[in-house]
């Protein structure tokens, strides 16, 4: 894929030929700098560490990357990241299939699994309604979500979205979809800081938000 157009949007040294004599090193730094949370400065530090660090960290990273790329897939039922399809949660008999926690992104599952109190299953939407980012209702797997209700006999759906305008809208949309079904629909209590991100919520806060989840 030609990545020049996106690069042109980045400012600073990336516009010009770059600051390195080596085009290969320059390419590596640019690729790293495109990762979330990395600026050009950190990307450069990481690149140099990978290439010159003790114990050939580049080799280790390449192997890990290749394996992850080969083995990691999304679970066909819930959309979580997994090596087995269906994932461990979806195939476990001890997880309650009648309770489903609906989240926006695969990372949002992690705080629940880390905290360990949640015994139901998940459904990953892959995003929130946001026309500004080109995401409309047709772009999210709502039909597959409904299927889960009909096939698995789900009785309660817990909507665990960030407390953002988009999180509210998506919750509202799902509420509409489920209006004529006999299910309990709940939303995490506002323990999650406003505008805060679910993925980075600590366990105690999450547990409280879960216990005091409100019915919609």
């Amino acid at each position, binding site marked *: 894929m030609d990545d020049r157009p996106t690069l042109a949007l980045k400012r600073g040294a990336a516009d010009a030929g770059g600051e390195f004599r080596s085009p290969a090193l320059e390419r590596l730094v640019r690729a790293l700098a495109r990762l979330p949370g990395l600026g050009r400065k950190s990307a450069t530090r990481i690149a140099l560490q990978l290439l010159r660090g003790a114990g050939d960290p580049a080799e280790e990273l390449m192997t890990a990357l290749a394996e992850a790329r080969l083995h990691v897939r999304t679970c066909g039922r819930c959309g979580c990241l997994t090596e087995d399809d269906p994932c461990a949660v979806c195939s476990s008999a001890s997880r309650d299939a009648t309770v489903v926690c609906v989240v926006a992104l695969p990372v949002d599952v992690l705080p629940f699994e880390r905290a360990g109190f949640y015994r139901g299953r998940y459904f990953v939407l892959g995003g929130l*309604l*946001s*026309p500004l980012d080109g995401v409309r*209702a047709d772009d999210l797997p709502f039909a597959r979500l409904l299927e889960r209700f009909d096939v698995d006999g789900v009785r309660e759906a817990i909507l665990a979205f960030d407390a953002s*305008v988009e999180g509210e*809208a998506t919750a*509202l949309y799902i509420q*509409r979809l489920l209006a004529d079904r006999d299910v309990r629909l709940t939303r995490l209590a506002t323990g999650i800081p406003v505008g805060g991100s679910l993925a980075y919520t600590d366990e105690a806060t999450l547990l409280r938000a879960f216990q005091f989840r409100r019915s919609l």
Partner: protein
Amino acid sequence: MWLLEASIEGFRNLIPSRLVLSPTVNVFHGGNGQGKSNLLEALNYPALGRSYRGARDDDMVAAGAAQAHVAVSCRTDNGDHILFECGMEKGGPGRLRIDGEPVRRRADLVGRMATVVFEPQSVQLAAGAPELRRSFADQSLSVLDQAYFRRLMNCHRALRQKAALLRDARRAGASPSRVRAEAEIWNREIAREAAALCESRATWARELDPRAAAIYAEMDPGSACLKFVYLPSLEACRRGLAGEDLAQEILSELDYIGPHEVRRGRPLAGPHLDDFQLLLGGIGLRGYGSRGEARSAALALKLAHGELIFAQRRVRPILIFDDVFSELDKARVRRLQQECAARHQLLIATARPDDVAGWKPDGLRTWRVEGGRLEELP
């Protein structure tokens, strides 16, 4: 609230400097284009987390520099000290800290430093476009009530989402009924926030009105009575409803115009179209007022906002005047200056020495601003 000390670096044409301010009156003299407004813009930056002139961070970083820093330390009305540190970067996100703690969202900053700014643009408040009055209302209410700012951001966000939905749907020729069903989701959020916003705006205008009228009467004794009223754009806001009832009514109204919005491909109603009106003796200042009347009315409104901050938060805002006094009657100006100085810390920039000539309030400090350099005068 008092601005005690400031240090400024890499900001527009200002030479890096530290200044210690007087808790009473501070005057910055200088010719046109020397940096007076730049200085006031820098000092007020922590109040909004951005320029009061609406400039982008990019424009404020000095030509040739990569970053600008403004640190401002204040004493609050209950005797605490508070330190604001602001970093602006060319092409990057700004950085804000309060007492060393990073501030991630502007909502956590707005209102912490209470100021009232009167600058050349403010004169347009009475006679200019609705947007100016709306943004005055929004800034004023955000200082008075943190929840207001949060709601405003949410409402704007939902409106922008709906606008994007309508625009893209029109381009793609999507089915109108499905677009409406989706727009309705955003309408609910808009209605919920709008109900609270419009109620706040109505109350605010009612409380500002008598205060502005009293100040105007003092500035221009014998003149007709000044009136300030809220003109909500939503029909639902004119029926005296409140809370959940108002939100419901707004939702029905948005529903009603839904088909038109889908056809036109953009939102056609909402609190983003509200306005306010200033009247003198029952006649709208917009279109009819004289320049002097418009200027005095705008000033009265700003000062009334200052009184409201004190009435509701027990905080005396810092008053910042950028070249306000030209065109106003000398004797009135002096009376106004004295009254403001009796209650507030004042920062005054002026290109005309006679605006403050002969005025020697206690604690007065004076600077000359020349080519971006600050020099304190004895």
